[in-house]
């Protein structure tokens, strides 16, 4: 891999008072044991927009994303320092209740991971655990979220069938429905389409465009066409640093950094 001058950066500061910021990080470092995977990343994500994180594998984009709702807490030996600001609170602090926080910052993973339960249960299970007992509310949520995820028509007669019997693409859309059933503020997606066929991918992308109205979305993708199609902003990650952050249009047409230009034009990665 070619060496790039990492001091050469262009990070657009969205937090300029002109727009609403849903989530931002300030000098975020992530390390596993003695190895530092993220070397201080500061980005701000605008509300009701889709932000794509791109970069070669090993660039740290997934690690960064997983830190945003502290999923890395569960991996032994991981240390996250720096600030993650959400609604004026540093949610990386010890005083924050992570379980409550994750209700507001949901996540969809690379590998579809529906529970070994029925479709209906997949969506309502966490709601019930969080205290929602009313049948009509649960029924309404199942219908609404499955419609939003573009799955309702296909499964409305099989709601009590096992979710594991669904196809990969359907499972992933179910996982999206499950995540938005919590009515989160922010939805983090970690390469949600990487294991899907093109048709399922297109459906998931449509779903995300639809969801943008109500949710702030941050999505990791290795598929640049995908980033170009759906995102408003794009951050380019390289070896644990965010080197360029700008409007997606600009990143793909007139990147300011050599590394970004090489990556989006397919010279590495």
């Amino acid at each position, binding site marked *: 891999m070619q060496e790039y001058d990492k001091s050469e950066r262009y990070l657009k500061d969205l937090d300029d008072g002109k727009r609403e910021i849903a989530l931002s990080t300030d000098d975020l470092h992530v390390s596993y044991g003695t190895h530092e995977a993220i070397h201080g990343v500061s980005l701000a994500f605008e509300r009701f927009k889709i932000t794509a994180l791109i970069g070669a594998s090993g660039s740290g984009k997934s690690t960064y994303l997983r830190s945003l709702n502290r999923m890395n807490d569960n991996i032994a030996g991981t240390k996250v320092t720096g600030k993650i600001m959400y609604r004026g609170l540093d949610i990386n602090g010890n005083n924050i209740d992570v379980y409550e926080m994750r209700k507001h910052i949901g996540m969809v993973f690379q590998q579809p991971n529906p529970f070994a339960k029925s479709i209906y249960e997949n969506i309502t299970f966490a709601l019930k655990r969080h205290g929602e007992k009313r049948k009509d509310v649960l029924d309404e949520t199942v219908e609404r979220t499955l419609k939003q995820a573009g799955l309702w028509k296909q499964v409305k007669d099989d709601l009590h069938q096992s979710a594991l019997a669904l196809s990969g693409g359907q499972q992933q859309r179910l996982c999206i429905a499950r*995540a938005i059933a919590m009515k989160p503020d922010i939805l983090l997606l970690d390469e949600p389409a990487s294991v899907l066929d093109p048709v399922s991918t297109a459906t998931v992308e449509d779903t995300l465009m639809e969801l943008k109205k109500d949710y702030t979305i941050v999505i990791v993708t290795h598929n640049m066409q995908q980033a170009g199609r759906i995102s408003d902003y794009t951050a380019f990650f390289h070896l644990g640093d965010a080197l360029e952050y700008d409007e997606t249009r600009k990143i793909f047409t007139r990147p300011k950094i050599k590394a970004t230009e090489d990556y989006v034009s397919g010279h590495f990665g």
Partner: protein
Amino acid sequence: MNARKWDKVATTILYLISIFIIFVLAFLLLYILVSGLPNVSWHFITGRSSSFQAGGGIGIQLFNSIYLLVLAMLISVPLSVGAGIYLSEYAPKNWLTNLVRNAIEILSSLPSVVVGLFGFLVFSINMKFGFSILSGALALTVFNLPLLTRKVEDSLQSIHYTQREAGYALGLSRWETVIHVVVPAALPGIITGMILGMGRIFGEAAALIYTAGQSSPPLDFSNWNPLYIASPLNPLRSAETLAVHIWKINSEGIIPDATKVSAASSAILVLFVLLLNFAARYVGNRLYGRLTGVKERK
């Protein structure tokens, strides 16, 4: 002889060994069932055992075996599930966890007679439970715990990490995720392990000789109040199980039809274990199918 001939000879020998092992099992099962089943009758299964003359039954012993089995499972299942969850989900990777794992492995390698003697010393004598159902159930629990715990841990570990992340990402605690997501998904393995554990307990005798005792007082099957002294449910009465009964009549040799009674009792014991074995397979496959919506386990 050349290499090709050796190959043939060796293959033949391997076939013979395999046939021999199948033959051993066939012989054991046939011997037990053929010599035992003709002596099994309703009277035998429900009747009282006799101390000196022929014609006794095994009703109380059978009841004791089942009662002890149920009690021991009631204690050991929650404990082993809790311990298995701790090891699989919470235990940090450090020397203390290693020590705990070693302790469990040592416990599983202890001879059951040692477990029985420990139970005798601690439950029967120090805690003053005497030769009783309670002492026996506790000894069986000690005997059963390490294997069940390991089975639970293995079953939980076989559930992919992404299932847990799905739960965490919905704001659920680890405990909730384990109890409501991981454990249900691991249930086929856990249940299979539990049923096989039941088979082990049902046939165990060495751990019971000095804990549950080797005699059975007369029981009053019309009074099920556990506090009543002759109640079948009284946990402080001594209780000879079916397996202990087989051992006892063979080593004492007082009753004249010891061989008949042992054969019939062995047949019942083995049938029960076979039944549990098949149940373990069947239940495991069915649960797996129900959970995944897949018809057959590959």
